[in-house]
């Protein structure tokens, strides 16, 4: 005997994400979900980004990792409030789910901030599937990762609103075909802005910071 069900498996997360979105809208906080593979320079990119926008844009960070508080310790040095989530408490999850972000946001004074950056768990697969109630998603890809990552992980590059191509200061030392990676990103997500920069030297940050400021102002 067949019993009709028709339910989305991720419904529980999607409903929670919508509640988060409503809460962030009420508090007038712009939420940026930052995703990448491990080692792409996500934390360094955020440290540098914060140095350009604070104190003008009041910011806070939720840092997600399976273990350690290393990222939170680094980001706290910029002077912003940081909440570290270790997903091993939630079964070593490979991504941040909406309920985890909601719990972490409860430890922040949302009335005091304009921007909440969520540094997701380093992983190009799972975080792409989970809405956390953010306003924009970005992916950080570094030039040491190979040109074919966008076509190997199309969902990630498809769901994001912008991509950062990091570590461009290393280009002279690598056999890296930048044209190919840009072409791959364009195939997966035509028209998505790509910011080529170096989080180490600060090269290329102006267009990225302009884009971020504009998106925050639009909310």
């Amino acid at each position, binding site marked *: 005997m067949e*019993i009709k069900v028709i*339910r989305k498996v991720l419904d529980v997360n999607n409903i929670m994400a919508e509640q988060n979105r409503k809460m962030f809208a009420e508090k007038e906080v712009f939420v940026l979900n930052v995703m990448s593979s491990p080692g792409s320079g996500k934390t360094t990119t955020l440290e540098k980004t914060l140095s350009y926008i604070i104190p003008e844009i009041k910011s806070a960070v939720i840092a997600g990792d399976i273990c350690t508080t290393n990222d939170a310790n680094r980001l706290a040095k910029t002077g912003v409030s940081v909440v570290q989530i270790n997903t091993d408490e939630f079964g070593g*999850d490979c991504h941040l789910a909406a309920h985890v972000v909601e719990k972490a946001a409860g430890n922040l004074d949302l009335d005091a901030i304009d921007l909440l950056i969520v540094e997701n768990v380093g992983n190009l697969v799972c975080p792409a599937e989970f809405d956390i109630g953010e306003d924009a998603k970005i992916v950080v890809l570094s030039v040491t990762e190979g040109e074919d990552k966008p076509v190997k992980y199309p969902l990630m590059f498809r769901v994001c609103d912008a991509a950062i191509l990091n570590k461009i200061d290393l280009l002279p030392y690598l056999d890296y075909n930048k044209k190919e990676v840009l072409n791959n990103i*364009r195939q997966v997500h035509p028209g998505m802005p790509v910011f080529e920069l170096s989080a180490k030297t600060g090269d290329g940050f102006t267009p990225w910071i302009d884009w971020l400021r504009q998106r925050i102002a639009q909310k």
Partner: protein
Amino acid sequence: MHEMGIAKQIIEIATSSIPDDLENIPVEKINLKIGQMSSVVPDSLRFCFEILSKDTPLAGAELNIEEIPVVVRCMECNIVWTINKPVFVCKKCKSGSIKIISGQELDVVSIEVADPDTT
């Protein structure tokens, strides 16, 4: 990669879909729709489901997975086609304004239980 969490959700949905008057009736099959663009690996999902469903009415149930191809529509010239590789550019007019119509599903469609008359 997160198949364990997905399996857990499927078990919750399927368990809550068993009508109250058929409590403890064995579930024989769970019919799922999984889009090719969702990052779920069917074999891993079956493996996780088998472990988590032990000692529940779902133990031994078959996960019947219908894989849904990625179908897109060009928002400029309106053509619809199925893509086999991640190129989201219109094959006719080269526009990048593409909408995904299907291929991202992760749905529990139905469950099949033993016929109450024969149990």
